[in-house]
């Protein structure tokens, strides 16, 4: 195995593209080193992206923030600006693992690991986040929603790496929230999760919504009918019931030791409902 720490995204992409064997990207390493230890992957090349300029930076951009791919959860959680703009995104990222894991784990790594239960992904999709991807032929932008393809599979070609994720500007009277269910409060993997981002008019009616579920399908799921159930409402009981029903209808989970199909399907709706209420209050709505 070789270890490389390129200083530009182009060099990183070229190294990865030119490697005939197995290559892996290293940012926080909290998934990769576990896989190495377990013998799940035996890379010929590891490309450490932490020395690429800007990858550990959080930079204001067009009213939002560009989060470098090597920014740790702890670093993101300490950033008052990001916490104020997209609290649901920060909630998702900072739920991952322990304090020690937070010291290293990255949002982009969580996305690239390809887990359907990735805690940072639903709120990123709800926020309309866009990943900037560097490749051997240059850079491209891709909505976070389009990156997960299935468990362990992502829409990045050989030689491509995510270098940053743009959290866009948030319209006035907007709020987001993320909730997950785990059997214990810390150090666990979500059994079902939900993120909601809302924008209200000056009368407290929802004018825009994105509702996203995690851990209940092979990939994160953007549920348009659930968002439609909220549009024009002040989150009255009927609207919340329609939201929950739409979320449950969008689930296609697995049965495993952490939760049954029936449990995940019901809990996804409950979590979406609760997250919607939190997002509504954060947007300044009163009910």
């Amino acid at each position, binding site marked *: 195995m070789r270890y490389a720490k390129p200083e530009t995204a182009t060099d990183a992409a070229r190294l990865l593209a030119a490697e005939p064997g197995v290559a892996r990207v290293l940012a926080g*390493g909290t998934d990769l080193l576990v896989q190495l230890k377990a013998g799940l992957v035996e890379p010929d090349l590891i490309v450490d992206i932490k020395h690429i300029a800007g990858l550990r930076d959080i930079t204001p951009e067009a009213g939002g923030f560009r989060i470098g791919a090597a920014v740790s959860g702890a670093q993101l959680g300490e950033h008052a600006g990001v916490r104020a703009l997209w609290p649901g995104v920060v909630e998702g990222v900072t739920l991952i693992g322990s304090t*020690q894991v937070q010291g290293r784990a990255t949002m982009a790594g969580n996305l690239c690991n390809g887990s359907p239960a990735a805690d940072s992904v639903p709120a990123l999709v709800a926020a309309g986040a866009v990943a900037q991807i560097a490749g051997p032929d240059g850079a491209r932008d891709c909505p976070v929603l389009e990156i997960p393809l299935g468990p362990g599979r992502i829409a990045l070609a050989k030689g491509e790496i995510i270098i940053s994720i743009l959290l866009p500007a948030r319209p006035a009277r907007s709020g987001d929230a993320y909730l997950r269910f785990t059997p214990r409060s810390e150090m666990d993997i979500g059994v079902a999760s939900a993120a909601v981002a809302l924008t209200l008019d000056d009368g407290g009616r929802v004018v825009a919504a994105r509702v996203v579920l995690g851990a209940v399908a092979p990939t994160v799921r953007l549920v348009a009918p659930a968002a439609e159930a909220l549009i024009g409402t002040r989150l009255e009981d009927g609207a919340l019931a329609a939201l929950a029903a739409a979320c449950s209808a969008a689930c296609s989970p697995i049965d495993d030791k952490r939760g049954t199909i029936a449990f995940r399907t019901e809990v996804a709706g409950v979590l979406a409902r609760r997250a919607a209420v939190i997002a509504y209050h954060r947007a300044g709505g009163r009910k």
Partner: protein
Amino acid sequence: MKTIHVATTVNGDAVEFICAPEESLLDVLRNRLGLTGAKEGCGSGDCGACSITLDGRLVCSCLVLAAEAEGAEIGTIEGLAIGDALHPLQQAFIDHAALQCGICTPGILVAAKALLERNPDPTDTEIRYWLAGNLCRCTGYDKIIRAVQDAAKKMRAA
């Protein structure tokens, strides 16, 4: 296999070592540098027994490649006491009998020190969440929380 030369700082001292690309920082600390305070419990970032600080961040050294330590500032349990003078956290763990077998203790001390540097007056709940990634199978945690609170109190008064 190509070996890698790494120049780093451990507990304030300049240190150089040679390692294999896949070697963890924990293995280098223990096997090459003789710093055996950090323990390998799970080797997969779940137990916290190998906790160290890397550039001021609390991390599991089993989840860091040794090669990543180039130019970094590393803090280990060996850096807590100053000569024969125990750190207040170490003294509090003795006073409160906050350990039994002791395998988890170095990691908990390093983690608790990182907490008190950020938050000198934490609540019990804040301590429990901060230490959620440090598993202890002996004490049941209550004595650990009491010891951290006692050390925090003494450090605030100092």
